[in-house]
């Protein structure tokens, strides 16, 4: 399965973030979106990756970008995880049908039943402008995302 290529329209989705709240990608038209797929809540590496993005929420906002996390965990698990880690961005539950959104983005791992650790930067028109699939145990950092956002904003203001 290959991750969605740069330049393709990101498939829309609408997934729960809490038991009574849903978030869809199309709500973010006009803003850049950093979509962070990760294999599972609570595993140490994901924690570090999301912790880093959590520190950068306001920097990302300054670049007209919102962060969204996404994994196959259930919504109650997400609620507990987000509360414990004090995340300032939504994490979405790609739970039923399991991994459907990860599949649409080409980052589902059939064998393990989880998504890859993958990052997509989606522009204000919903087009994928940058993506990166990192080895599953390695936290990719944020430098690639920031460069991609700078590139998008530079082109727009040019």
């Amino acid at each position, binding site marked *: 399965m290959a991750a969605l290529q740069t330049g393709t329209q990101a498939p829309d989705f609408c997934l729960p973030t809490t038991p009574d709240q849903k978030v869809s990608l199309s709500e973010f038209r006009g803003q850049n979106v950093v979509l962070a797929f990760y294999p599972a809540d609570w595993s140490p590496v994901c924690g*570090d990756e999301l912790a*880093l993005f959590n*520190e*950068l929420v306001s*920097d990302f906002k300054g670049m007209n970008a919102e962060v969204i996390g996404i994994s196959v965990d259930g919504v109650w698990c997400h609620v507990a995880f987000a509360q414990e880690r*004090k995340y300032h961005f939504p994490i979405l539950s790609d739970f039923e049908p399991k991994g459907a959104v990860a599949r649409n983005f080409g980052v589902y791992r059939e064998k393990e039943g989880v998504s890859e650790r993958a990052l997509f930067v989606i522009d204000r028109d919903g087009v994928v402008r940058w993506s990166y699939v990192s080895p599953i145990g390695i936290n990719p*950092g*944020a*430098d690639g995302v920031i460069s991609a956002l700078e590139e998008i904003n530079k082109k727009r203001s040019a």
Partner: protein
Amino acid sequence: MAGLQPPVSEKDHIQGNENAPVTLVEYGDYECPYCGMAYPMIKKVQRHFADDLRFVFRNFPLSESHPHAVQAAEATEAAGLRGKFWEMHDTLYENQDALETDDIFLYSERIGLKLDQFKKDLSNKDVILKVQSDFKSGVRSGVNGTPNYFINGFKYEGDNLTEAITKILSVVRG
């Protein structure tokens, strides 16, 4: 391989021989338990390589995970204004479980700072900006957690600094 941005400069806190063939940069967080475990290991590495190694510390506080981390980092920078950066750095890593404001005030006196001055220095704009700019430089450099290391400007992902530095020294010396 991710590279260190910006390179080490006089703005950094540097320990050891300024002409050393190897420069080790750590991005660390005073409340991070892994950094706490790394602290004595770094001391050992410094003793082992002596004049062959220059050590630089940059702040990478994950404030949302570690509520005391930013103030702790600012405390070291404030102490640094009075030439006591490393004294505060060491004290905080040796007392990681006590990083409340009162604890930090106590440490400032213990390392010979005047408390009134230290309190003022803690809210100095340059102190606050230094911690922020260290964090930003870390993000640019591809830091993904703490501790993260750079050896001669390149990110080191392994877990044996002594081995890595020995290898580089043998290359540098030919």
